[in-house]
C-alpha cells in the first residue's frame, strides 16, 4: 500500500511548527501504524545521509519523533492524532495497535500530536504529559505503606464490584480523552482513578478527599472543565466510560458538603 503523510514537525516547545508531506510505498496492510512510521523514518534518515539529496534541496527535518514503547496497547506511551481522531480511525485501540489495513491504498493521512494546553509539545509528535503524574500525586492512591496490612481475603469484595473497579483501573494514562475534548478536560482520566478506588472498601475511606484533591490539581494545571460531550468516552482505547465521571461527581459533591 502507498500513502501520502502530512506530519506535524516542531523542533521544540518554542518552535512554531509546521506540516511536512512525505510519501511511503509498499507498506504491508499487516504493518502497524507505528511500523509504517518506522519505515518513513528509515527513509528520512537515508535521505538525510545522502549529500546529493541534501544538495538537491531535500528539506527533510530528519526522522519524526513520536512516543511509543510497549507496542501492544498497554503502556499508554503512543499518542497520535490521526486524521482528526485520537489513536486513529479504529475503535478501542491505541495507535500502536492500529493497522494499515484500516486505511485505503493511496490515502493521505494527517498526523498530529495531542493538542492540548495541558500537554505542551516537546518535539514533533511528542508531548509532555507530566501533568497526569502530578494529578495522581495529588491523591490518586490509598494511603498505605509497605507491610502491616491484613490478609488479602480479609477484605471481601464482590465479583461485580471488583470488575467495575477494574473497568476504571484499565485506564492507561495515554491522554486521548484530553486530546479529544474540546475543553481539554482531564475529567475521564481523573474519574477513572477516583471511581476505581472509591468502589473498593479499602479505597472508599479517602474517597471524598481524593476526589477533591485531584480535581483541584487538574484545574490548577490548566485542564478545562467537563461539559458532558462524551467525546472522551468515544475515543478511550480502553473503553473507560463516563459512568466513572458520575461517580467522581458524587464523591466530589460529598466532599463539598463536608466542607
Amino acid at each position: 500500500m502507498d500513502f501520502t503523510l502530512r506530519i506535524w514537525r516542531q523542533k521544540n516547545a518554542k518552535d512554531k511548527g509546521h506540516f511536512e508531506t512525505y510519501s511511503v510505498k509498499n507498506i504491508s496492510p499487516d504493518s502497524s501504524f507505528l511500523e509504517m512510521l518506522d519505515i518513513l523514518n528509515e527513509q528520512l534518515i537515508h535521505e538525510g545521509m545522502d549529500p546529493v539529496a541534501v544538495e538537491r534541496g531535500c528539506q527533510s527535518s530528519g526522522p519524526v519523533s513520536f512516543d511509543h514503547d510497549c507496542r501492544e496497547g498497554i503502556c499508554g506511551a503512543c499518542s497520535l492524532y490521526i486524521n482528526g481522531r485520537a489513536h486513529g480511525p479504529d475503535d478501542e485501540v491505541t495507535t500502536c495497535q492500529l493497522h494499515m489495513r484500516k486505511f485505503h491504498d493511496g490515502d493521505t493521512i494527517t498526523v498530529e500530536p495531542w493538542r492540548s494546553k495541558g500537554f505542551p509539545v516537546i518535539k514533533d509528535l511528542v508531548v509532555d504529559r507530566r501533568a497526569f503524574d502530578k494529578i495522581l500525586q495529588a491523591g490518586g492512591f490509598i494511603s498505605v505503606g509497605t507491610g502491616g496490612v491484613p490478609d488479602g481475603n480479609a477484605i471481601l469484595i464482590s465479583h461485580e464490584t471488583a470488575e467495575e473497579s477494574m473497568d476504571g483501573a484499565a485506564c492507561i494514562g495515554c491522554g486521548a480523552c484530553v486530546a479529544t475534548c474540546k475543553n481539554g478536560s482531564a475529567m475521564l482520566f481523573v474519574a477513572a482513578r477516583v471511581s476505581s478506588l472509591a468502589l473498593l472498601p479499602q479505597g472508599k475511606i479517602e474517597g471524598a478527599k481524593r476526589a477533591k484533591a485531584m480535581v483541584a490539581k487538574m484545574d490548577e494545571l490548566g485542564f478545562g472543565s467537563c461539559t458532558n460531550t462524551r467525546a472522551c468516552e468515544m475515543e478511550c482505547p480502553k473503553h473507560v466510560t463516563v459512568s466513572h465521571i458520575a461517580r467522581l461527581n458524587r464523591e466530589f459533591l460529598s466532599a463539598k458538603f463536608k466542607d
Partner: protein
Amino acid sequence: MAEKLISKIPEGPLSEKWTKHKSQLRVVNPGNKRKLEIIVIGTGLGGASAAASLGELGYNVKVFCISDSPRRAHSIAAQGGINAAKNYQNDNDSVYRLFYETIKGGDYRSREANVYRLAEVSGNIIDQCVAQGVPFAREYGGMLANRSFGGAQVSRTFYARGQTGQQLLLGAYAALNRQIAEGTVKSYPRHEMLDIVLINGEAKGIIARNLVTGEIERFGAHAVVLASGGYGNTYFLSTNAMNSNGSAAWQCYKKGAFFANPCFAQIHPTCIPVHGDQQSKLTLMSESLRNDGRIWVPKKKEDVMKLRRHEIKATDIPEEDRDYYLERRYPAFGNLVPRDVASRAAKERCDAGYGVNETGLAVFLDFSSAIARLGEDKIRERYGNLFQMYEKITAVNPYKEPMMIYPAIHYTMGGLWVDYNLQTTIPGLYAIGEANFSDHGGNRLGASALMQGLADGYFILPYTIGDYLATQFKNPKTDTSAPEFDAAEKAVRAKIDRLMSIKGKHTVDEIHKKLGHIMWEYVGMARNEEGLKKAIGLIQDLRKEFWSDVYVAGDTDNFNQELEKALRLSDFLEIGELMARDALNRKESCGGHFREEMQTEDGETLRDDKNFMYVAAWEYKGENEEPELHKEQLKYENIKIATRNYKD
C-alpha cells in the same frame, strides 16, 4: 579471585534462613535515614516498589526512568498473573511447593536460599497489593480468584483480567506517587543512566542524559539500586517494549559488577507469529491462555499444505487429524508445561514441516473445546482483552478460529550477579527484579517475574540495603564535583561525540536487525558449538561495522531518539557476544539454554550436573579482552536433584 563471589547465604535450616538473616542485618535509625540518599534506576515493579518503600522508611530517594512517566515501565505489559503460595484453593500449595516448582522449573540452576525466600514473601505481596487497591479478580463470594500457570500443579496465580502487570504497577506507582507528594522521593522521568560512578570502589552516583534537553547530568547518592530490567532486545524482535534495554546493567558490568548466566534467555511459546520484515516487535499472548487453550498442528502434511494455501481453515480439520502434541508428549502437564518445553516442542513440530501459516512458523492455540464447555461469555470474561488484542493485530476472530502462535524472546533470567542481600560485586550497588540473575535459573515460570520484582522491591531490598547504609550515615552527601564524576562524564560525552561523528551509511535499526538475526539464528532456541563460535565472530564484525559505518541522525543537545537507540545498540552489540560466550561455555542443556549436542533421545534437555551446576559470573577485563569466568557452585541441600519430568 573466587573470593569475590561471596553469596552470603545464611547458615541454618532453609525455612529459618531469612528470618535469622533479618535479625542480624544492621538497621539505620530514623534520624540517620534522613541523611542518606539512594538512587533507583527504573520504575517497573522492582524499581517503583523499592523507591516507594525506601521513601516510606525515610531515605531520600531519586528515581529515574526513560519513559515520560514511571507508569510506562514494561512490567505494565505482563498479562497473566502473579504467583503466591497462599493455598487459598486448598489444593495443598505451600511455600515449599512454590519453592520446589520454581527450582525445578529453573532446571536446578537457581540459588536455593533466594528462591525459598521469594516463595516465603509471596503471600505478603498479594496482601500488600490488595491493600493498595489492586482490583484482583474475585469469586462471587468475594474471595480472591486463582488460575493455573505453566510448570505448576496447583492453582496459585492471582490476576486482574489479562492486565495483571498493569494493575500491580499502578499499585506500586501509586505508592511511589504518594512518596513523591510527601517529598521523600524525587522523580526524574525521561532520564537515562549512561554510567555508574564509583568512588573508592563503591557505587556513589550516576551520569544520566536528560532525554528532553540532551543535557548530561550528575547525580550522587550513598547507594545505587539497579532495577532496569532485562536485555531481551538484544534480539531486536522480542516481546520487550521498544525502549527496554540492557545498557544500565552493562555499564555496571564494565565498571566491575559481574554478569551472571547471560545465556539464559526465555523464549515464550505463545506469541503472535512474525508477519514480515517490516515488523518492529512481537506481541505476547498470555500464558494464562494455556489454561483453556489447546495447542495443536495437523497430523497430516496434506492438511498443512492446504492450510498454507488457504484452501481449508483450521476448523475444517477433524478432531482425529489433529496432533495435540503437548498433551501427547507430556500427559502429566499437557498444555501447561513450562515455557522452554512448550517452545521447543513448537519448534520441533515446525522444523518437521507441520507449521500452519505461510511461513511454516506457527502452531494453533485453540479455544473451541473450552468455549463448548464453558460458553463464550466465560471465555470473554477471562481473556476478553487478549482476544480483542489478537483480533486487532491479525484480523482473525479467535472465538471462531484458533489463534496462531509461535515462540519469541521474552525474558532474560541472566543478569547482574548478586549476593543474598541483592548486592552486586560492587559495594553499594544493588540489582533487583529482572536486572539480577538470582531466582529463575535456566527458565522462569510464568507469573513469577511480577512476584520477584515486587518481592525484591517491597520486602527484601528495603531490609538488606540498610545493612550497607548503616556503614554510610557518617559520610557526607556525595560530592558530584569529585574527579570520578568528571572522568565518567567525560567518557560519556566522548562516546556520544564519537557516535555522532561517524556519519556512515547504515541506520541504527538496520544494524540492530542484523544483530537480531545473528542472535536468533545462533543464540536462539537451539545452540551448538559451531554456531556459537560463528556468532561471536559475526557479532565482533558487526560491532566494527557499527563503529565505522552507523549514521546517527539529529544532534546531541535535543530530544533525539536515534541517539538513544544508538547508545543502547552499542551495548547490545557487546551483550550479545557475552551471551554467546556464556552459551559456548555451558556445554549442557538446561532450561531455555538448549545445546543440540546435549539432548536425550526424545529431544529433551540433558543437563550435566557434574560439570555445570554453577552460576557462571563473568568479569569484564577491558575492551577487546576476554572476560574472566568465575563460578559460584550451587548447593541443593533441601531438594532432590532430578531430571525435569513433565511426562508422568
